[in-house]
Every structure is written in C-alpha cells, then in structure tokens.
C-alpha cells in the first residue's frame, strides 16, 4: 500500500490539503462508487485487487501526464483495494487548475486512463451469491503473445 493504492476507505481531506493551491480557481473531484446494479444484475459488493507495485507506478505516471497534457496545477489519484460495500468509493481523483475547462478535461482523462491502464481488477458480488470478474481492457497487444 502506498501513495496511490490504499486498502482503507479513501479520504478526501488529506488530498485536498496536499493539493492546496491559491493559483487554482477550479477544483474537480471524481469518485467512482460501487453501484447497486451492473447490466441489469443486482450487485451487493465489489472486491478490488491490484498488482500494487505496478498499479502505483501507473497511477503516478497518469498524474504526471495529466498535469502535462492539460496544464492543470495539481493531480492526485488514489484507488482502493479490498471488498467495498454499495456506495463506497473505489477511486478518487483530485484535479486543481486555473480554470474549469482544463480541470474537467484533466479529471476525465485521468479516470479514463486509470480504467484502461492500471493493474487493477474487480470482482462483482451479486445479490444471488454468485460473483464474477468483469471483462476488462488488455494490458498487452496481440503481437506480444506467444506464437
């Protein structure tokens, strides 16, 4: 566990303090939260697993890219692992920028990249007791697989 991957409830306050910046006029915060249904099936909980070292490296990279690409002034990303109940936040993204246009765009970029690139997996637990790992985005390209 560390700066980006945490196994306890996500806390906004420390990230707000860490990113305080009088040069920013816009603060956009995104939380992904556990939803009570997916594709029509009632969900009861969600378990998140990570390759912690890899995921931390990727989230660190995404923070740096977000600052660079959008000219925002602060970007912090945290993702929680473990079993989360309905409504609990799994991911938290804090972006501060001079103005709102770039802050919204940067926040959106960061969450899209997290979903595409971070070594994190989720298993949905359904109300009927069944559970399933969700289909996701391959980290590898087809030409990298064994012949």
């Amino acid at each position: 566990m560390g700066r980006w991957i945490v196994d306890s409830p996500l806390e906004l306050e420390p990230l707000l303090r860490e990113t305080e910046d009088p040069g920013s006029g816009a603060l956009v915060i995104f939380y992904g939260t556990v939803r009570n249904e997916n594709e029509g099936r009632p969900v009861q909980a969600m378990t998140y697993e990570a390759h912690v070292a890899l995921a931390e490296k990727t989230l660190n990279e995404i923070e740096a890219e977000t600052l660079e690409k959008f000219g925002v002034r602060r970007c912090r990303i945290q993702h929680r692992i473990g079993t989360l109940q309905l409504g609990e936040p799994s991911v938290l993204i804090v972006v501060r920028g001079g103005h709102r246009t770039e802050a919204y765009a940067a926040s959106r970029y960061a969450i899209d990249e997290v979903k595409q690139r971070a070594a994190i997996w989720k298993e949905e637990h359904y109300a009927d007791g069944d559970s399933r790992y969700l289909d996701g985005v391959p980290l590898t390209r087809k030409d990298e697989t064994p012949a």
Partner: protein
Amino acid sequence: MKIQVIFYGGLKQDVGTKQQTFEFPGDGLTVGGLVEALKAQYPALAVRLDTIAYAVNDEIVELNTVLRDGDQAGLLPPVSGG
C-alpha cells in the same frame, strides 16, 4: 530455479489457484517458456493467453525476458479498475 507465479483477477479462478511456486531445472528460462509450462499444467489458461500481460517482479516484461531464481512472475488479465 524457483519462480513464484501469481495469477491476478479472474485468472486465479480459471486455474484454481492464486499463487504457486514452480521449480525449473537449469537457467535461461524465459517468460515465454514459463507460459508454455503453465499452459501444459493449466489448460484453461490457453484460451486467455492473447489478452494476458506479464510482469516480473514490478515490471511489465516481454516474452523473451529471462527469469532468474527467486523471481516473481505475475499473469495479468485485462484490467477493470475504476
């Protein structure tokens, strides 16, 4: 040499184990060679290989990466964080 293999996400259900240590004779085993050995032991793995990425210790690696005694190899299926 000993290689600890960790199956992430849904892979651990497919193969029935989260992690397992394998003993291989001699040196020079590549990640690709490891994957071939795993395929033989876990047929369920074969159909998923084209979407799996490989990590050795804390790095994503290519199939020609040579493993060393004590390495930890992670098999990473498609990710679904967020």
